[in-house]
């Protein structure tokens, strides 16, 4: 079991394009072709992940620079999201005994929604995914193949049947296409 004081998260810096906006930070991961938008709180915490500061220290530093309250729970939530997004050198696992808190819990506890750390991510599209579908286009996916968008499918329809099933390419006019 890791002790709280021993966790020293370190932000990843290699193969990233970072753009600072007025209220957010945009990060493009060149390795995974993913783009992330960090809100103000998440960006602030990410900035303090220097590999030397512990979680309580990060929460104290973030609190000093933020107009909204930042406690250890807020930092843990941010670290979990940053870890999942591969924006930390090592994935941080919340120590056993440390309560699991979700964004909803923080809001319920009185934290303003805007102060809750949020990392929103997308996968950058392949060129063919960002284009209009042409039936039987080159390299298209045949029916019954897993897909993510309709433009990948030879018959132009990527359709999800049931909530648990992955979307698959189907024939035309079978329902709503993704």
């Amino acid at each position, binding site marked *: 079991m890791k002790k709280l004081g021993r966790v020293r998260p370190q932000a990843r810096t290699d193969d990233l394009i970072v753009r600072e*906006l*007025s*209220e957010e930070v945009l990060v493009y991961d060149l390795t995974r072709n993913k783009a992330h938008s960090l809100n103000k709180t998440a960006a602030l915490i990410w900035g303090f992940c220097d590999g030397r500061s512990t979680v309580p220290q990060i929460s104290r530093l973030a609190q000093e620079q933020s107009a909204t309250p930042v406690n250890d729970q807020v930092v843990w939530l941010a670290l979990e999201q940053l870890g999942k997004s591969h924006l930390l050198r090592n994935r941080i696992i919340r120590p056993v005994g440390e309560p699991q808190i979700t964004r909803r819990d923080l809001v319920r506890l009185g934290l303003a929604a805007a102060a809750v750390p949020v990392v929103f991510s997308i996968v*950058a599209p392949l060129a063919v995914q960002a284009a209009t579908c*042409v039936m039987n286009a080159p390299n298209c996916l045949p029916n019954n193949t897993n897909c993510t968008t309709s433009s990948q499918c030879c018959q132009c329809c990527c359709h999800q049947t049931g909530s648990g099933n992955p979307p698959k390419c189907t024939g035309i006019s079978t329902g709503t296409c993704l």
Partner: protein
Amino acid sequence: MQKIDRLGWAAGKSFRSYGVRVGIRVNNPEVLDQLEKYFPPGWKPAVSPVVDRLYSLKVGGSSSRPGVRYFHLLYGNVVRLARTADIEELFTVFESDLQLYVAEVTRHRLFVHAGVVGWKGVAILIPGLSFSGKTTLVSELVRAGATYYSDEYAVLDRHGRVHPYPRALLIRQNGNQKSSKCPIERLGGVAGRKPLPVGLVVVSHYRAGSRWRPRQLPEGRGVLALLANTVSARRQPKTALSTLEHVASRAPVLKGARGEAKEVVDSILHKANGGRPLISQGGSVHSKTNSPK
């Protein structure tokens, strides 16, 4: 020399589009002139035989042997793109592949998969995947008096301004995934000529019965919504982020499901107009319905 180079090509031409050099060769010179209408808007003839991508189109047809017909073949460099008995289908694949290639590799402009119209000196961008209803919305906006810019790509320069990409609208018929071309004049619209700054981005998809109640995305999320539809997002992410940042920092990005396109047109134009009352080009005042919060 590749095997394809020995097939006996009768004619060819090269051209530039957005700085990308493209060549096309055919075994039947008559087809060459027909192909020009499938070139991207704004192409210019080139004299250099050196190209970035070479298309080879072999027209098939009847054979000297009875009962035998040859397929029409299309290659992009050495990869076969299409093999079909329908020459129009071949042209469609050629057009799609060519436009996508230029959109992906050009360094002069950033191509976002989006419909675009101009309204009162600003552009309205409607990014979205296939089947999200971009063309339908663009058609309705044009019918309401907006200027047509594109129904396929928003062509952005480094300052975030949109340039026209005035090809005919590709309209899908009800229940049919094949599309037909519709010149903008047939809708009573006009095509824009000058680049415009972006005034509004509408990220929407059609959902039957939905009421248009969009929410405004924060700037960063707005950039990601545009990036998700950017053709060269992976090839040149730095340029893409920088350009899209220009767009999202100046224009609100609205997101939400919509019902029928006709029902949201006034609301979109009203928002693009900075919330001022709408006066169409004919002089009549549009009613304001379902105005976004």
